[in-house]
């Protein structure tokens, strides 16, 4: 049925919590307030205060408590309102949750989800607009999911709630109102990239919000006779390079579009992996269209200019095809 990204996330949480009583949701404003972006609205009433847990503003301990809970039989979904706040929880995410299974020789895992949202679009300025997924991709022991569509928001979150290891689940603040078909029977998609649009001229690799701008751009390019194959990675760990490199082997050209800033960002790993996996097929260098290497400014026009726009994706596609 037709629903929104926000409701799809809620439905995944509700269905999973009904089936698995060990799941608890904890974070600032997840209960009475219903979540800063409304994802958990109404859930306190259904699941009660022991499973929908409003926390004080204590990011380090929200995640730390989730780690301890996950080691003792609960499956916590710890929510950080903005991914920018994970800077206060990095020890618990990186040194604890991600490493406990390994440090302890495999005797226990940390089946928890760290939910947060990132990205631009609300004039939230430098401390409320970041895209920090590269940090987690660089941390062994974590899964990283970044759904772009209504169905993926639902399917990825439901699957994440069955995994034995910690998952960083990153939503995009501009996608909550996205409308779309939710297909609950959709095939499992964890770690499988999805070709959102077939095309033979170049491969466009992206995820999260940029999937939508990329598809718009692909339409515009098609008008001009350029066929882009748009691939939505869905998860950054596991990373499905098979799908990506199979496409590049076909097109010989690749453009990566991410919202996180360029230098040492996700686009760097993807470019390197394409070179490693499809070098002999590359007719052009892999292009990276990413966020600018700047803090996000508050002024609306500047904020918009700090991340890839549909127009710039179109221009980059044409540049890639120019010779």
């Amino acid at each position, binding site marked *: 049925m037709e629903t929104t990204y926000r409701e799809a996330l809620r439905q995944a949480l509700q269905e999973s919590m009904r089936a698995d009583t060990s799941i608890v949701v904890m974070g*600032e404003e997840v209960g009475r*307030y219903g979540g800063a972006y409304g994802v958990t609205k109404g859930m306190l009433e259904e699941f009660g205060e022991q499973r929908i847990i409003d926390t004080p503003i204590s990011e380090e301990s929200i995640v730390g408590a989730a780690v301890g809970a996950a080691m003792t039989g609960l499956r916590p979904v710890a929510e950080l309102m903005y991914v920018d706040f994970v800077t206060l929880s990095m020890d618990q995410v990186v040194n604890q949750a991600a490493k406990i299974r390994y440090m302890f020789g495999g005797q226990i895992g940390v089946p928890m989800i760290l939910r947060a949202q990132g990205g631009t679009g609300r*004039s939230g300025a430098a*401390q409320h607009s970041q895209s920090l997924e590269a940090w987690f991709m660089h941390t062994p022991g974590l899964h990283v999911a970044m759904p772009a569509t209504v169905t993926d928001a639902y399917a990825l979150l439901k699957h994440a709630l069955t995994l034995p290891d910690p998952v960083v689940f990153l939503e995009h603040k501009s996608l909550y109102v996205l409308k779309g078909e939710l297909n609950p029977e959709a095939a499992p998609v964890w770690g499988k990239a999805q070709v959102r649009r077939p095309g033979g001229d170049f491969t466009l690799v992206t995820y999260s919000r940029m999937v939508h701008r990329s598809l718009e751009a692909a339409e515009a390019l098609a008008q001009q006779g350029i066929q882009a194959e748009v691939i939505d990675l869905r998860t950054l760990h596991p990373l499905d390079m098979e799908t990506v490199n199979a496409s590049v082997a076909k097109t010989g050209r690749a453009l990566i579009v991410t919202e996180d800033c360029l230098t040492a960002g996700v686009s760097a790993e993807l470019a390197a992996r394409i070179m490693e996996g499809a070098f002999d097929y590359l007719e052009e260098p892999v292009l990276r269209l990413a966020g600018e290497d700047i803090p996000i400014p*508050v*002024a609306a026009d500047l904020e918009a200019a700090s991340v890839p726009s549909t127009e710039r994706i179109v221009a980059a596609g044409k*540049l890639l095809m120019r010779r």
Partner: protein
Amino acid sequence: MSQKSRHIYRQLLRIRTFEERVGELFVRGGTAGSMLHLSIGEESGAVGVGEAMRPGDSFTTHHRGHGIFLARGADPQRMMAEIGGKLTGYCRGKGGSMHIADMGLGHLGANAIVGGGITHVVGAGMSYRNHQTGAVSVAFFGDGAMQQGGFYESMNLAALWKLPVMFVCINNEYGMGTRLDRASASLEFVRRAETFGLVGAEVDGLDAEAVQETASGLLEQARSGQPAFLKVNCYRFHGHARMDKSPYRDDAEEQQGRQKDCVVFQRKRLLGLGVSEAECDQVVAEVAQEMDAAMQFALDSEAPPMESIYDDVYAPGQPKPESVEARMRQAMHSPILSGEEA
């Protein structure tokens, strides 16, 4: 006496009216976004402590800091322009409401990370101690920040190093939708601060002059190397930010909370001191004019130019970040990247 009381009334009113205009600017679509946190109902903390501070003293604020900066001498026009994301704003339209700062007036910055600016005053205190400037640095934050661990580290550092630092908790009873008693198991914040080696006090925010008196005493102790903690009790009259209608609290409570109105209280005091209604209304009119002008200034100001997007990531003279576009052009040995020419 009444001179000072008049001044305080005007200051309280300036903040109240400024915030009302921020709300209006938002409705008129003139603000950069909706993450605007109004300090209506909390003016006494800003004015009381702000008046107790001296020139040269510095401070950091939380996301709800408009009033604090106004109390410390801010130009409402440049503030409003910053809230509008305009080039004429204090941060040239880069920071916005949650990042207003002005080194000239000792504003070390508003912060959008709850608790993020608290430790900065510890560092400022180190500077003032080493350079023996005699200044104090004051951290303003909300009751929600009392649950951030960094605050306790900061109190300990300030006490351990005997720094000229004061911590001011503007307790408006709420952190977003969470009432303080649902965020903190104990409300003995002053005793708590004492167990970290600070002196502390709690004051009713209804009376700005009482806040100033208490703040003055603590500030002078801080100045002499005995860091202090002050809790100002008030009530957040409106929602957390512009989009929040406070469904999580009932009207009865809100009406009750809004009774604690430091502006009304101060006006009553003036009347009691023999100031006429007409004189008070005169102040209201002057302030309204001042803040209307501020709003108009923001509306009339220009947005920052596109080119400025790469400015001030690093200091002038240091290389600016390369644009993503330039990088792609280099890769393709192409002079241009644009819909047309490509």
